[in-house]
């Protein structure tokens, strides 16, 4: 790993970040770009792409498997195009570890930074999950375990609404979020709430104000983390995320 020369604060060097949306639909791209645009630094340039094949939403470990390969390939393209960092925009973090192996620029998921930030804000967080019933329990619990913060997780609670329904039924989404967040705080002992899906836009105010807890919105946290890593010249350790050996891989 070679360290680049630092830019001085007078130079405005644009940082190019590619957001990879790991679902085979364009439905979220504009909403995500609009939301991330509000939080991006002035010297950040954002591009967004969804995967062309794979699942139309990610709600369980099975969907993750469908999305991963296509997601990693989009990440590889981003690096080849000269991007400075990549965000995999799904709370399941599909393909995140594989992309960290393959790429030499920072790759950031939206789950990983959210649980770390939440751990800095309080003692116990609860994740508000989206998906039919409780189908994503394993996917979300596995990620918390992988990131080593299961001791900080008070609970995973379920809105029990399919991902593809939440934007269409925004009032119901906000109401279910508030109901489950209230239970997380009152029954599970959570002091911090994490929105457990990248597609929950502008629904957190009531939780923040009425329950007196910080609400971590995963997309902006991922963006800020990615910007910081680029600015600080930090990338995933290639001693742990070692580059994969060359070989024939067929599809």
């Amino acid at each position, binding site marked *: *790993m*070679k*360290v680049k020369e*630092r830019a*001085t*604060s007078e130079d405005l060097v644009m940082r190019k970040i590619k957001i990879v949306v790991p679902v085979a639909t364009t439905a979220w791209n504009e909403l995500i770009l609009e939301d991330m645009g509000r*939080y991006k*630094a*002035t*010297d950040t340039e954002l591009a967004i792409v969804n995967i062309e094949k794979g699942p139309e939403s990610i709600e369980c470990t099975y969907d993750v498997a469908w999305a991963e390969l296509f997601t990693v390939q989009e990440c590889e393209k981003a690096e080849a195009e000269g991007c400075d960092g990549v965000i995999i925009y799904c709370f399941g973090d599909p393909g995140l570890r594989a992309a960290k192996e393959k790429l030499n620029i920072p790759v*950031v998921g939206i789950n*990983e*930074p959210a649980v*770390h*930030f939440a*751990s*800095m*804000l*309080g*003692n*116990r967080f609860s994740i508000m999950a989206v998906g039919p019933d409780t189908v994503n329990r394993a996917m979300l619990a596995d990620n918390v375990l992988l*990131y*080593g*913060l299961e*001791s*900080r997780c008070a609970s995973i609670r379920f809105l029990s609404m399919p991902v593809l329904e939440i934007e269409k039924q925004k009032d119901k989404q906000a109401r279910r979020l508030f109901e489950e967040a209230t239970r997380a*705080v009152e029954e599970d002992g959570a*002091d*911090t709430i994490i929105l457990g899906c990248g597609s929950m836009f502008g629904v957190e105010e009531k939780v923040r104000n009425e329950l*007196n*807890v*910080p609400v*971590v*919105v995963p997309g*902006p*946290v991922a963006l*800020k*983390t990615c910007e*910081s890593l680029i*600015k*600080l010249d*930090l*990338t*995933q*350790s*290639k*001693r*742990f*995320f070692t580059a994969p050996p060359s070989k024939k891989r067929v599809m």
Partner: protein
Amino acid sequence: MRRIKVVVPVSVDVWNEPVRKLYDEWRGNETEIDVVNIPKGSASVECRYDAGWSALFTVLEAEKAEANGCNGVIVYCFGEPGLLLAKERLTIPVVGISEASVHFASMLGKRFSVITVGPSREISVGYLEDNLERYDLAHKCASIRVAVMEILDLMGDPEHEAQLVLAEAKKAVEEDGADTIVLGCGSMLGMEKRITNELGVPVVVPGIAALKVCEDLIEMGLAQSKRFFALPPEKERTL
């Protein structure tokens, strides 16, 4: 503009200028930085006992920062004296440089080592381990290694210091299995490039990680949870 107050929790002002310089280099364009040390307390913070001496004066400076309209506070010492107290008392984000850096390191690899400086291994390790336990990230820590020297000597011979730190970082990677290095003292400045170039691992500089976390929290309207860090009750407290 975001105004961040950096409290250096030692009763000497020798670090203010180097810290100011560091933050000027790394701050966002909309961030304004103010650096102060504490008027009383310990001259350096190398153990739990020193932290006890510095904690109260650190919190008092942090309170002043909030009263003066600052948007965030950074407790600039890897031992983080007074951090939890300040998180209770303040409603603006309070960030420690250890907490921010070990969370960053955890996102970069599997196991980090903390390389710190101090008068002896015994004095530093227990103190820093307490912090890692509190952040529930002790299991991500491959080792805590100490480049043995007096912190206040760091000002004198930076080349000698860098050599000692590099030697410990090399052992951390080769013997302890670390894939990421965290510099375990805010006064270890200007040596991260050299370690990265020689060992091929990311090196987290704690002061800069804390700066970015503090800026990000302000930007996103986040602060420590007042359900966990509830406001202290009012009463008379004398000094």
